[in-house]
């Protein structure tokens, strides 16, 4: 035998041993899907709807938990008369059948809005409202669309008169707030007035006495407060994931495998591990309600969104914020506003949305730039540079094609109906 024929044999033996070693390692390392370690089970528990904290109080709104306020809020939420053309209610964009979104990339009402319509399900837990957090309560948020020329396009004087001119609304308002202001004197209270872009309405507003402006603002704020009382009822019900979590957390892995497919189980593992999704989409609502720049590209034709850096400035200046004179909170109760952070990381940062109910809430991201879940997952796989600011999720996930499909399969298990009685999801029956 010569050296030449021996060498390949050594190589062959070496190759076989390497393969055998790899196989042994793989067998040792393999865990069947659904056999969760303790630390993974505690992560699953942290996402389980059952562990959601009770709905936090809304100290700036004394009627937030008042059922009578929620009933009036429901009527106002669906009332088209609260708009410049009499055709656009809150529900025009926040459609209950789409989990209170509109299915569009960017909202369209009287005009075109800058951003995607967010769901209101679960927002009672969110310290900040809007993609950039430019409001700090549901009630102050709900006032903005009423006066936004691209949305309901009205003004606060028109709105408060419209509401109190309805005898049924006036009766309910008086029962809730124990007062019924009189705006019938048109020399003090013009038909249309409100600060903003419309020069006539703005001039009429500036010409009003401070105490009359205060009277109007108080009713205007109260209208927001009853709408908040209604919106706080929109909480998610348990999804298929929650049934799975309940099964595996009670030690019933077999039941778990009946509820979840293999792909969904593997998708959950990716969600908690390699996908790094839980860095922001954490807790039972799958969001930390915090602001992050994740390098989502600008909408074609738009400048990059400055996000939270502008939103923080706006919420601090907003007269209807938690520290303002229309808030029912003491200063010590406005913790989020008082201790909000500044900083360059807020440039291009937008609020983490919940991942519950993704099937009904496409397209995604702040301008609806991302049409499908597959595209969204692909975005984090590619981790592009941010156009402004810095992409916090800058490390490519390197998910393989089958892993992307598994992650998507898991995300779709988070769908569920709204836990509120269905009669809340439509305009109230006329009496």
């Amino acid at each position, binding site marked *: 035998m010569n050296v030449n024929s021996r060498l390949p044999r050594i190589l062959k033996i070496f190759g076989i041993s390497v393969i055998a070693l*790899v196989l042994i*390692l793989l067998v040792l390392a393999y865990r069947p899907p659904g056999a969760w*370690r303790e630390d993974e089970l505690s*992560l699953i528990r942290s996402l389980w709807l059952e562990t959601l904290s009770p709905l936090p109080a809304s100290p700036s709104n004394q009627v937030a938990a008042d059922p009578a306020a929620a009933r009036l809020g429901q009527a106002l939420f669906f009332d088209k008369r609260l708009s410049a053309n009499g055709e656009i209610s809150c529900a025009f964009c926040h459609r209950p059948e789409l989990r209170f979104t509109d299915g569009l990339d960017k909202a369209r009402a009287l005009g075109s809005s800058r951003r995607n319509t967010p769901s209101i399900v679960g927002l009672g837990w969110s310290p900040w409202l809007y993609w950039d957090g430019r409001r700090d309560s549901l009630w102050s948020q709900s006032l903005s669309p009423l006066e936004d020329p691209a949305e309901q396009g009205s003004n606060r004087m028109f709105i408060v008169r419209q509401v109190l001119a309805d005898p049924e609304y006036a009766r309910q308002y008086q029962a809730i707030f124990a007062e019924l202001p009189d705006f019938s004197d048109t020399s003090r209270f013009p038909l249309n007035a409100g600060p903003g872009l419309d020069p006539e309405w703005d001039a009429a507003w500036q010409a009003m006495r401070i105490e009359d402006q205060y009277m109007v603002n108080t009713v205007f704020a109260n209208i927001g407060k009853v709408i908040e009382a209604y919106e706080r009822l929109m909480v998610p019900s348990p999804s298929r994931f929650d049934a799975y979590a309940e099964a595996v957390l009670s030690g019933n892995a077999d039941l778990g495998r009946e509820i979840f497919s293999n792909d969904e189980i593997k998708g959950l593992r990716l969600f908690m591990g390699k996908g790094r999704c*839980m860095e922001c989409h954490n*807790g039972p609502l799958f969001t930390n*309600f915090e602001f992050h720049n994740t390098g989502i590209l600008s909408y074609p034709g738009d400048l990059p969104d400055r996000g939270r850096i502008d939103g923080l400035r706006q919420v601090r200046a907003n007269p209807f914020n938690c520290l303002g004179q229309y808030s029912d909170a003491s200063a010590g109760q406005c913790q989020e506003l*008082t201790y909000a952070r500044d900083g360059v990381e807020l440039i291009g940062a937008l609020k983490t949305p919940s991942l519950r109910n993704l099937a009904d809430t496409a397209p995604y991201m702040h301008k609806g730039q991302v049409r499908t879940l597959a595209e969204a997952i692909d975005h984090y796989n590619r981790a592009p540079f941010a156009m402004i600011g810095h992409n916090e999720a800058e490390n490519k996930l390197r998910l393989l094609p089958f892993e992307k499909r598994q992650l998507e399969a898991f995300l779709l298990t988070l769908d569920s109906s709204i836990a509120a009685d269905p009669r809340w999801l439509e305009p109230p029956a006329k009496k």
Partner: protein
Amino acid sequence: MMSALFNQARTMLYLLSYAVLLLAAQSVSAAAGDSYSSKNGRFRVSYQSQLNPVVINQIHAWQLHVTDADGRPVTGADIAVKGGMPAHNHGLATSPAIEPGDNGDYLLQGLRFHMMGYWELNLTINDDGVRDEVVIPLTL
């Protein structure tokens, strides 16, 4: 095929190192009420969280108690607060502030942790020119 195997092996390694990190982090995290010495030993700080256990995504306050090396309360010191997750290179989600009290007590308000994992809170204490830093580790 080989790349898939390689990937799986890598995933295992990743998970393994993650678990090791997690365990390591847990071993340094201490229960509320423990006290922490400053880097140069000038101060000791203990805290009591308003939220017990501390959980993510809820704004809350901590009661701090500061003493000197001999255990005497340090009252009226300037305390600057910073914090963040060293592994993720980011700071706190909020800008907390200190309200001084009596007898070495201070109220630390406006804390909210927005991610699970290992956090550090850095308190820079300045008491009449004596300056030192305390690191409080915390795993959520």
